[in-house]
């Protein structure tokens, strides 16, 4: 269906063509023309997403050496490894838009680019691992499933794979919580305590209320976002409440109640001051998360330099051999 453009098209023509494709739910691919704003917004969104996968390894990684059974250790290790993999696809997707991974990493470790605020909370007991799977991955999936239909091809395809693995992680997390709720009183207490700590931050993962989210409209027009923050948040709450009941945990919101008229749950307002404070960098773990990533990157500089130097030497040797 791609229209053959023989003459050099004007910007307006290109833009019209682009808008037409997007409106028809056709995919934009790396070599296609796209408006600068679209490109920039996508790079920002994809790289924030990539950073979130990478930083998100830390709160879970915190329990790798202490997992209470070898089976749980293997599950957790595989999960954290998957997240590194997601980070890799997503950085690749950003690179198709002309971004440079090294540059994105620099922006992350100098706090010039953000990642999901949720990862600035500490993991304090092993139930946190389950709750992250259940609530945090659950919220991520709500956010991400629509992105599998994102207008930008490479991002949409990465999202298909990411969502598939995240659903698997979510089920594993929920299964851990089920097991713990069938266990000792101490285990049940851990699950409830972890739920109390993660519930509100999970709701905040959908971003500020629609009234405070100025970029939503444009992103929706471009089909790189498909629902508003509040729509997604509502969907998440409605989806999670019965899961909490099945588990036997109480969600820490006294205002949470089924509204039979609107056929959805009413719920309380997250502490948006806390959200803003964490976003500004003052959450319980912001400084540590970025510092750990920065240290890993800087400590690894000599290794990456060595790999580059070796590659150059290898290429030179192969050339010499070819000439000989």
């Amino acid at each position, binding site marked *: 269906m791609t229209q053959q453009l023989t003459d050099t098209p004007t910007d307006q023509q290109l833009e019209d063509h682009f808008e037409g494709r997007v409106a028809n739910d056709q995919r934009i691919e790396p070599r296609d023309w796209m408006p600068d704003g679209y490109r920039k917004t996508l790079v920002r969104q994809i790289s924030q997403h990539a950073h979130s996968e*990478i930083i998100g*390894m*830390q709160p879970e*990684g915190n329990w*790798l*050496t*202490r*997992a*209470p*059974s*070898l*089976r*749980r*250790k*293997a599950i957790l*290790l*595989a999960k*954290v*490894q998957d997240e*590194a*993999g997601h*980070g*890799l696809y997503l*950085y690749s997707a950003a690179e198709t838009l002309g971004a440079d991974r090294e540059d994105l990493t620099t922006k992350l470790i100098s706090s010039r680019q953000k990642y999901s605020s949720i990862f600035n909370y500490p993991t304090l007991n*092993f139930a946190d691992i389950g709750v992250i799977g259940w609530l945090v991955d659950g919220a991520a999936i709500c956010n991400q499933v629509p992105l599998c239909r994102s207008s930008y091809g490479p991002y949409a395809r990465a999202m298909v794979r990411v969502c598939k693995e995240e659903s698997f992680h979510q089920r594993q997390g929920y299964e*851990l919580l089920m*097991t*713990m709720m*069938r*266990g*000792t009183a*101490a*285990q049940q207490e851990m699950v409830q305590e972890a739920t109390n700590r993660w519930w509100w931050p999970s709701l905040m993962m959908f971003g500020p209320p629609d009234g405070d989210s100025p970029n939503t409209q444009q992103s929706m027009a471009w089909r790189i976002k498909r629902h508003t923050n509040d729509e997604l948040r509502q969907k998440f709450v409605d989806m999670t409440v019965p899961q909490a009941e099945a588990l036997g945990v109480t969600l820490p919101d006294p205002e949470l109640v089924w509204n039979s008229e609107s056929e959805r749950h009413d719920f309380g307002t997250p502490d948006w001051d806390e959200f803003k404070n964490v976003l500004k960098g003052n959450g319980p773990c912001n400084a540590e998360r970025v510092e*750990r*990533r920065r*240290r*890993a990157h800087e*400590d*690894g*500089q*000599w*290794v*990456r*330099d*060595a*790999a*580059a*130097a*070796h590659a150059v*030497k*290898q290429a030179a040797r192969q050339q010499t051999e070819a000439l000989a």
Partner: protein
Amino acid sequence: AQDLAAYCVMLGDDALVLSQRLTEWVTGAPELEDEVALANIALDLLGQARLLLARAGQSDGSDRSEDDLAYWRDDRQFRNVRLVECPNGDFAETIARLLVFSTWRLAVLSRLTDSVDPVLAAIAAKGVKELTYHREYAAKWAVRLGDGTAYSAERMQAGLDAVWPLVAELFTTHEVESRLARVDVTVESSAVRDEFDTVLAQVLPAGDLSTPDRPALGAVAGLAGRDGVHTEHLGFLLAEMQTLARAHPDAVW
């Protein structure tokens, strides 16, 4: 059966403890690709450990599970070689240890695929594929670092030097192994030294690295890792690894 169990514990503890050490690299590796690779290797070794410890618990008649063995023994009862319990050091030292360990273990496990114990043979067959990849990963990095910058070459040689005193212990045949070798369950560790030397004689020169000339690390009155006499590091590693499991002895996870 006691000997078979003891031997499975040795090989299982090697894998479990090195897996734990490699896990410490997660979120700290030089590049995301290495993050994935090191996690993958840790996961493979963890898988081997689980099978081997489960086999040990079956064959000694104690009916202990993999978790009973991993979480409820003290360091004195761990039977891993001391090589695997030492701290990671830098990336070069981690690679040096992985190269040495995977070369040795691949040589052992490839012999074990012919074991008269079918379970051990099956575990070994699975492990051989995994270790082939581990050895390749380590060898590639050893060559890259050795043939990289002046600094990386120095680090890589220093890494090899640091782990070398612990290599001899890999080839010290324990009496359990001797007895099992006589009944074709396994081979003596000392029998795979040639293969090990041959492999390293290919890898090291490719990275302009020399075989360290370092004496073996002393034992304590002749006792070392396989006898449960470890370095000071293992106790700390286990304290961390076992803390949660031990805090909840009645829990199922």
